[in-house]
């Protein structure tokens, strides 16, 4: 089961990485998707290798976490057209590092990942909802299902909400695993990853279609 979820996860990331090649020459935030997905693929592959080898792999994701936070923040700020905030990228990075250090000292290494994910995903979800609210009130003449930004946001929203739930009910999910041998957490995370990278792949395709049409 573990091998299946790992393989499917890597397939989703690889598919998104390949689709991001379509928008490699795009400007602004679109050009960061390819390097980010490449880092995700390398991290996931190494994490999976360590896991299958029976080696503790949390530190890999702890190192990856600031990259995840910085990239998602940039993407959402760009989509929300917060140009003023985007001018201070180094400030944003510094804030993320400070937040990371604060959580590390406050909760320790064991809770670092869960605390950061719950807090940051909550913020990301709020940003996504702001985007959806603005979209509804600003521009009604577009085809929403062909809008790349919409699919990027939808992917992040579902992933963020799902992640919060998974981390909040981690204890229950572990109990289910121990009593029923059902890896519900892995299945939910697989679904969330599939949705995130699937939405992004479709968004890249829409962006590419916009370019060629």
């Amino acid at each position, binding site marked *: 089961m573990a091998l299946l979820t790992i393989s499917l996860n890597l397939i989703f990331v690889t598919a998104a990485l390949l689709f991001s090649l379509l928008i490699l020459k795009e400007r602004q935030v679109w050009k960061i998707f390819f390097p980010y997905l490449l880092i995700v693929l390398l991290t996931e592959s190494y994490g999976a290798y360590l896991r299958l080898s029976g080696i503790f792999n949390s530190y890999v994701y702890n190192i990856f976490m600031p990259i995840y936070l910085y990239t998602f923040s940039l993407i959402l700020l760009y989509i929300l057209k917060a140009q003023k905030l985007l001018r201070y990228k180094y400030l944003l990075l510094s804030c993320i590092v400070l937040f990371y250090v604060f959580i590390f000292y406050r909760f320790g290494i064991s809770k670092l990942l869960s605390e950061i994910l719950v807090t940051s995903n909550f913020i990301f979800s709020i940003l996504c909802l702001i985007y*959806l609210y603005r979209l509804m009130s600003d521009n009604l*003449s577009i085809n929403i299902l062909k809008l790349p930004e919409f699919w990027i946001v939808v992917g992040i929203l579902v992933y963020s909400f799902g992640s919060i739930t998974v981390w909040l009910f981690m204890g229950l999910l572990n109990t289910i695993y121990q009593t029923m041998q059902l890896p519900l957490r892995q299945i939910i995370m697989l679904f969330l990853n599939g*949705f995130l990278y699937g939405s992004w792949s479709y968004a890249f395709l829409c962006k590419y279609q916009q370019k060629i049409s």
Partner: protein
Amino acid sequence: MSLVVVGFIISYVRLFNTRKKRHLEEKEQMKENFHLQLLHSKLEIQEQTFTEISKELHDNVGQLLSLASLQLGMAQNQPIPLEKIKQNIDTALGDLRNISKSLNGEYIQQFSIAEFLQNIKNQLDGTETIDFQIEQIGERYTLAIPKKIILIRVLQEAIQNIVKHARASLLRVTIDSSSGQILKITIIDNGVGFDVKKAELRNGLGLSNMQKRIESLNGTIDFRSRPSEGTQIFITTPL
């Protein structure tokens, strides 16, 4: 929880599409309204032009040709300088040329708003009943012809109301295009004024017609007047 979010997104897309459909229908209705107003404006301008032509033919050309005929009749009995007769016929011919120009459908399209107002001013100056002042602020602007036709018709109606009913001695029109995005036209007279609310209810002065036309241009029109205090009309429309 994730399924709830997915459900939320599906509902969001459905709601968005419903609102989009309604928005497009409204837009389509506005477009239809614009074309209707344009057609009405064109017809009314045409009607106005025919009335003016009929008046011009009767008052000027007819009179000049009658005079020339009379002079020719008299020339049979006594010597009259032919130069005078030729002068009258030339003036009549000039007037006829002007009339023929105004019969051309594209005649009005060649004018800018200011030139159109200048034409009205020239006509009114001849009557010496009203001091018509035109002021232009800002650089030259371009206005799409359908928009211009509707705007001209509104101005024509407003000026006609003032000339017919206001008993004003001063009429001032200001065209302000200085913002580059919005055209502001102000019409002010020192006439007898009127009760705006009553006039809007009765629509005797065609206020609601003007309102509809300006709305079809995505613009606004505001009437400010009180009995014996003159009238101010403020029009704004996107360029």
